[in-house]
C-alpha cells in the first residue's frame, strides 16, 4: 500500500535509522528495508526474543502483556513494537 511505503520511507530517512522490518507472528518478514539475509536473521532472532520477553511478562503477572521492547547495545538500538498479529522492528543508531 502506498501509504505504508511512504511512511516507511519517511522513518527510514530519519536520523540514525538503519532498518525497519515488519514480521508476522510466525516470524516471517512481511516488509523490510534491509537486505534479505539480515532480514531473515533479525526476524528469526528477534521473534524468539519477543516470545521470551512476552512469556516472562505474562508469567510474572498473567494479566499483563508486553507492549514495547527496546534493546540497547553498544553500537545501536533495536526497538520492537509487538502486537497481537505483527511486530514492527526498527534498528536505530542513536547518533548522539
Amino acid at each position, binding site marked *: *500500500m502506498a501509504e*505504508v511505503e511512504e511512511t516507511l520511507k519517511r*522513518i527510514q530517512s530519519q536520523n540514525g535509522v538503519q532498518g525497519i522490518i515488519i514480521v508476522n507472528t510466525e516470524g516471517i518478514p512481511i516488509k523490510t528495508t534491509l537486505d534479505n539475509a539480515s532480514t531473515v536473521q533479525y526476524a528469526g532472532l528477534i521473534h524468539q526474543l519477543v516470545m521470551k520477553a512476552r512469556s516472562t511478562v505474562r508469567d510474572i503477572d498473567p494479566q499483563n502483556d508486553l507492549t514495547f521492547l527496546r534493546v540497547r547495545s553498544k553500537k545501536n538500538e533495536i526497538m520492537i513494537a509487538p502486537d497481537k*498479529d505483527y511486530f514492527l522492528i526498527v534498528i536505530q543508531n542513536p547518533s548522539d
Partner: protein
Amino acid sequence: MFVCLLKVSICKHACPFFPPPLVGDIRTLQWDTDPSVLQLQADSEHGRRMQRLGASKITQVDFLPKEVVSYCKETQTPLTAHLSEEEEEEDEEMMEAKSGPESEQQDEDDNRENKEVLRELTEEERQQILHSSEFQSFFECSIRVMERALAEDSNIFFDYGGRELEDKEGDLGSGSSLSFSRLFYDEHWSKHRVITCLDWSLQYPELLVASYNNNEDAPHEPDGVALVWNIKFKKATPEYIFHCQSPVVSVGFIVLWDNRSHRRTPVQRTPLSAAAHTHPVYCVNVVGTQNANNLITVSTDGRMCSWSLDMLSQPQETMELVYNKSKPVAVTGMAFPTGDVNNYVVGSEEGTVYTASRHGSKAGICEMFEGHQGPVTGISCHSAVGTVDFSHLFITSSFDWTVKLWSTKHNKPLYSFEDNADYVYDVMWSPVHPAIFAAVDGMGRLDLWNLNNDTEVPTASVTIEGASALNRVRWSSGGKEVAVGDSEGRVWIYDTGEVQIHWREAQLSWWPSRWVHGNEKSHQ
C-alpha cells in the same frame, strides 16, 4: 566432492589370476575387464580364502554442492525434501547444545518448515496482508509509538560530571519572555494551506488541533485538513491526520471526527440545508460541562445554531442574529465568558460588536458596541479566574490595526491598543493570568501584552522569522505556551515561561482612568 574407492579383490588362493568359474554358487563370479569398476567377488563355500588388499584406481565422482538455503521466488518443491533433511540435522545438533524444552524445538522446526512452505506464496500473501485492515490498524498504532520512541533522544548514559549543566532557568526573565519552542509543519499536509483555526485539547493538554484551508496548488488533495499535533513528544509529525471535503471552517459544513475509528474522513457531518447553515461557519464553540454540552456555531449570515454532539443531522436550535430586528449580523467571531452558556459576544464584519443571549427574554442580539473601523477578526472574553470577576471584559482585534478592550457594561471601548502596523488577525486572553493577552498581526508579529506592566507597548514581542501573516493565536490551557498559526500552514509554539510564574498572586491592577471615575461600585 570426491570419493576414493579402494578396490578390494578377493581371489582364490590357487589361481590368482584366473579363478575357475564356480557353477552352482548363489553368487556368481563376474569377470570384468574394466579395472575401474568395483569388483566384489564373493567367497565361495569352500572356505575362506586369503584376502589380498590392493590399492586400486581412484574413482572420481562429483556430488553437487549442498543446497544453500535461499528464499527466492521460484518454486522449490523438488528441493524441499533436501532442505528439511538438512534442517533436521541442524536441529539435532542444536538440541544437543541447548537445553531448551523440547516443545520449543519442535515449534522451531515447525516454524522453519512453515517458512519453507509459505515462502512460495509470500508475494501474494504479502500484498494480502498489507491490504488487510488488521495490518492497517496495527501499523498506524505502532508507527505512532515508534516515532515517538525514535524522536526521544534521551541519552541515559550521559555523564554530567564532565561538563557543566546549562542553567536553563536563568535564560528567561531577561529581555523578552517569549521563547521559541517548536514548529509544527508537515510537508505533505501543511504546505500551501492557510491555518484557519487552532484549538488545544482540554482532556489532553499537550494536544493541539490545527485546521487548514485548501491547498490551491493541489486540487486533487482533500480541501480541508485537520492535524493533531503533540507538544509532549519531540517527533515532528502529526499524531492524527483528518481530511474533509470542504475547506475546514470555511464553508457551510460542520463535521465531527471520531478519533477512535481509524478512518480519516469525518464520521458525521451536518447537512447543507436551509435549517442549518448556508454560509461559511467561522465560529465554533463548545459550551457547557463535560457531560452536558452543546456545540454552538455561527455563520456569516448571522445564523446561530446549537447542536448536540450526538446528533449532527439537525441543529437543536437556531436563531437569526439580527440587530434591531432588521439587520442580520455578519459574524466573524464569537466568544463566551467563562462559565456562561447563555450570554456571549460576537464581532461582525462591519466592525461592530454585539452582545447576545441564547435563551431568555432577550434572546438574540442585545446591545451594540461601536468602535472598530474595520471588520472584527478576533474576540476573546476574559477567562482567568481570580478573586475579582473580570468576566465582563473582552478584547477584540480588527483590520483597523488595533486591539480594543471592552466591558459588557459600556458600549464604547475602554481602551485601544495601537502598537500594530498591520491587520491584527487574532487576540486571546491568557487563561491563567488576568492581565495578559496575546495578539498576532499580518506582519508576522506575536505580541504579549501585560496590562500590569505597560499599556502603550506590548511587554514582549517577537517577529517570527519566516512567517508571513499570522492568522491565529491560542494559549494552551496551562497558560505556558502559545500556539500561533500562519498563512503558510505552519504552527509555531512559543513558551511564555517567566511571565506566568507569579500569576497566582497577580491581579489586574490597572484600570483605565475614566472608568474608575464612572463606576465606583465596580472598582476594587
